[in-house]
């Protein structure tokens, strides 16, 4: 007889086998961890991860070498993890399996609430000088990085204040003054953008990514929202803050940009500013090393509804921080290394090698020589004092995904009414922020 399709009896047997297996196996759960207090003061070799772009690798190698030379018994081994979409997934999976390293120099603030919920992060405030070190180094901005219980589960490390880059040559071609373009208010920005596209200088005026990943709103909505509200976060005290006239104005501004085809609504492969597809970009100083040979660029702060002076304008920080993770057995060394790698000297190295802004107070005066030699970066250093971070709230990723879904629907593709979309998103996000 040909083996026939298994009968219901066989399905039942299979289900029973699986059920039995799962009961048995889930009963033997994971093993316990080491005692917390011993680990906090232990010293010894540790492992760290840092991101794998060229400049950060250069910084990472030199800081590890410097430490290893001075501390032969507490060697640091470093590995790279890829940046980009999947790094949070990798970290999350590693936390679950207990295979993550002591320190990860690529921890996204938006992922911190999730990692904290998993029990994957070590409370830095539990170190004697934890809170004081963080708050002295980062100043007022540090508060944005504290968790809901007031403790710090991440060390604020570096930020990339988001500003508007523009292509001076394209602007000249379009008949706009390249040293002083009118990009300060929404109206001026729209007029300039239209002029650039109509004159044929560039196919698009600006090209933020139109795709639906949860973090994309950090580069179109959020910087302008921060500027418009003088530094508000998306969510505060468990309530959404964007269903307001300012939020609506920002949304309508972008909606008009998309409606008039000043920005593209299809995913663009590669950097649109670098390859000449767009005349402007909304991005932070890490991009300077990419653009410097390709584009004759200038930079201005993000636009606001009414004219504001540069020293009043806030923006999104696009920060990447350092977390100390639960599997760390030599936390004493990890904390010492963390302080070493965020010292004034090492922050200076970070600045020099990568052009990204350490989250340290008073950058322009602390590194005055560097900025004298590299005036391009000075604007960013000044902007770095007024950055807004993503809110440290439960369900942070889900909140941003809900926002992004509303944004793509209403603003990018014009499928729904903007006000309605914001209201719906706000009520959904209120629920998520309140849910533990």
């Amino acid at each position, binding site marked *: *007889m*040909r083996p026939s*399709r298994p009968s219901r009896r066989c399905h039942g047997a299979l289900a029973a*086998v*699986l*059920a039995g*297996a*799962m009961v048995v*196996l*889930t009963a033997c759960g*994971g*093993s*316990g*961890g*080491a005692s917390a207090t011993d680990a906090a003061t232990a010293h010894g070799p540790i492992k760290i991860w840092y991101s794998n772009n060229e400049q950060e690798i250069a910084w990472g190698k030199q800081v590890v070498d410097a430490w290893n030379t001075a501390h032969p018994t507490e060697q640091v081994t470093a590995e790279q993890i890829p940046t980009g979409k999947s790094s*949070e*997934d990798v970290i*999350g*999976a590693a*936390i*679950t*399996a*207990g295979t993550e390293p002591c320190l990860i120099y690529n921890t996204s603030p938006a992922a911190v609430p*999730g990692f904290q*919920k*998993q*029990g*994957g992060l070590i409370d830095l405030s539990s170190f004697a000088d934890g809170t004081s070190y963080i708050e002295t180094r980062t100043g007022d901005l540090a508060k944005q990085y504290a968790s809901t219980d007031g403790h710090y589960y991440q060390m604020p490390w570096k930020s990339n204040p988001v500003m508007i880059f523009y292509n001076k040559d394209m602007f000249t071609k379009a008949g706009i003054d390249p040293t002083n373009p009118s990009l300060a208010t929404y109206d001026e920005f729209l007029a300039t953008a239209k002029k650039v596209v109509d004159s044929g200088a560039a*196919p698009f005026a600006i090209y933020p*990514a*139109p*795709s*639906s*990943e*949860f973090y994309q709103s950090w580069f179109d909505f959020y910087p302008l929202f921060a500027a418009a509200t003088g530094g508000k976060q998306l969510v505060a005290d468990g309530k959404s803050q964007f269903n307001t006239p300012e939020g609506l104005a920002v949304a309508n501004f972008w909606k008009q940009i998309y409606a008039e085809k000043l920005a*593209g*609504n*299809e*995913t663009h*492969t590669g950097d649109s500013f670098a390859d000449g597809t767009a005349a402007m970009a909304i991005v932070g100083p890490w991009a300077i090393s990419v653009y410097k040979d390709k584009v004759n660029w200038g930079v201005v702060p993000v636009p606001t509804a009414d004219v504001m002076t540069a020293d009043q304008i806030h923006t999104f920080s696009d920060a990447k921080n350092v977390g100390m*993770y*639960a*599997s760390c057995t030599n936390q004493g060394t990890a904390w010492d290394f963390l302080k070493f790698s965020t010292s004034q000297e090492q922050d200076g190295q970070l600045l020099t090698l990568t052009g990204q802004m350490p989250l340290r107070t008073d950058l322009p005066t602390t590194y005055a020589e560097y900025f004298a030699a590299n005036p391009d970066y000075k604007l960013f250093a000044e902007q770095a004092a007024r950055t807004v971070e993503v809110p440290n709230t439960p*369900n942070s*990723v*889900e909140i941003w*995904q809900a926002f992004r*879904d509303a944004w*793509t*629907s209403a603003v*990018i*593709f014009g*499928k729904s009414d903007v006000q309605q979309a914001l209201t719906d998103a706000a009520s959904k996000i209120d629920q998520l922020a309140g849910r533990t």
Partner: protein
Amino acid sequence: MTTSITRSPVPRDNPATPSAPDAGGGRRRTSLVTRLFGRQPIGMLLAAPYAVFIAVIFAYPIGFAVYMSFTDYYFTAPGVTVPHPFVGFDNYKTVLTDPAVLASFGHVGIFLILNVPLTVALSLGLAVALNRAIHFRTFFRTAYYVPYVTASVAVVAVWLVLFNADGLVNQILGPLAPDPSWLVNSVWAMPMIALFVTWKGLGFFILLYLAALQNVPRELYESASVDGAGAWRSFRSVTVPGVRQATALVLLLAIVTGANLFTEPYLLTGGGGPDGASTTPVLLMYQQGIQQGNPSTASAIGVVLVILVLIVALVNRRLTERSER
């Protein structure tokens, strides 16, 4: 009779055949061994490595996923204990009433309707043609196989460029090009993905059919042409029944691949397409389970998906079996 060759039933319990040494005797003497282990218990030995593999690699994760779908679960670091309250069917209720989830199942339905018949028809037709072609045989076979072989990640980049608003395809089509261009058009996004996946997967199914065609005896074609059958007739009466097993396999695999679509919507339409027009259940599972840390609802979606696919596969099997009797 030659026609018995195409009938796949393989009689195994013919009492006339003396049994293999370790099985029980003829039908009349059912020994303890036979009753306990079946007629050819060496089968257990041969299948054991595979069975162990499945048990070790898949039983735990799948069982665990089912468990998660009935509790309020999230992953924690080792040594961290948190309560995982049993919530019954709550996750399923949430998932089945979520319009985004239902929409994603709808998208998969559209995909399957477009992709499966096209795949079966095209791959069989092409396999038959490739089997008979003498000239340039290697070139043709390779040509159809190449898309299957290249990594999705790379090929997607090419498609993104080709179907861009000012890409090659629209340049050729001119005024016929759809206004929001292909991949950002909520009507065209899912069909584009269906086209892409069909194109990419065809090589694999052609291979399956090619191998199956080798086993259709040539005598059948010859006797068909003696009886005056033309190409189409012999295709219908000889080829199609002859590769019935392969067709069942192709159908099953095409359905499973379509239902589990993740990479293409993720890459080709940037994580869900214009206003979520090309989301799929597995994409949502990835977003909710891995990005947002909600493996409970993700597992619920997964279990629902698996059940639906099993039902479809069962129906498909019944249909193809019935036509055989």
